[in-house]
């Protein structure tokens, strides 16, 4: 039977729901933040909106996604499987989730400094870097979603 048609045990569904909903909120926050920063030019209000969307939407989304990921990982019994037998799609998803979290924190630190500099009347260059990082994160999470959904290998 194809993996497509597999029906999960009922007690896996809620952790998976938490994981997917968190990931969707994370991606939504990244899209909002990137869009606001991209269209801001030098508009301080849109630049601030972009940063706060990343901080108040993406970051909580990442936490929910990661907690859900660990929950479903344990529930499915992957903790007991030798690492050599962990499938590629799971490795890809886990790597992007964790490395992406680190990059997201760096993005928020740079963006936070950028917003403070903006309020002090200084350049918005750091918020341009925040935009670039948020677009990179968005692309990386698209790859993660593709891997988790399509399950290559």
């Amino acid at each position, binding site marked *: 039977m*194809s993996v497509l048609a597999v029906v999960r045990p009922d007690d896996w569904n809620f952790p998976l729901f938490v994981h997917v909903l968190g990931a969707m909120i994370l991606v939504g926050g990244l899209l909002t933040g990137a*869009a606001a920063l991209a269209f801001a030019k030098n508009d301080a209000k849109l630049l601030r909106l972009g940063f706060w969307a990343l901080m108040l939407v993406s970051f909580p989304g990442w936490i929910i996604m990661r907690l859900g990921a660990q929950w479903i990982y344990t529930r499915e019994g992957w903790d007991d499987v030798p690492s050599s037998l962990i499938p590629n799609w799971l490795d890809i998803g886990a790597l992007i989730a964790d490395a992406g979290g680190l990059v997201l924190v760096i993005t928020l630190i740079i963006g936070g400094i950028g917003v403070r500099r903006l309020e002090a009347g200084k350049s918005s260059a750091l918020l341009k870097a925040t935009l670039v990082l948020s677009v990179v994160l968005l692309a990386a999470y698209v790859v993660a979603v593709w891997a988790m959904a399509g399950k290559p290998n």
Partner: protein
Amino acid sequence: MGFKEWMLAFHVLSAFSLVAGMTLFWVLIVVGRRVDTPAGTLRLGPVSKVGNAAVGVGMGGTIIFGVYLAFAVDSYAIWDGWILAALVLWVVGGGLGRQTGEAFLEGPRKAMELEKAGQTGPNSDLLALNQTSKGLVLHAATSLVVVLLLIDMIWKPGA
């Protein structure tokens, strides 16, 4: 990775696009509630276009790839209860989403009128339109339908 797995990946990516667009609109709704100037209202226009594109891709992709999968995967049938429920929720969500969009377009329309008339300062009518409770309720209802769709897709009741 076979063709069906690619279709499933696109189906799920479309669902992410839909929810990402709706999340973007939640942010704009919250921010827009304090905006009372034409420039402030119109400033959010380009961002909302990204949301429209994401929702459009999401709605189109979920139905096209979803219906394909319902026919292509041996153990699924289009008349399965959870698939029929998803189709009904998709139609209801689409209808609610269209009405939500209409409700939130009134603010930008008023902002353009005010700008044309040379009125650039704060305007209480514009603030009231940006704070539309009808739009808020409709967006909340649309979001609820999308969450129900996600629950239906994960639990697959009756499958």
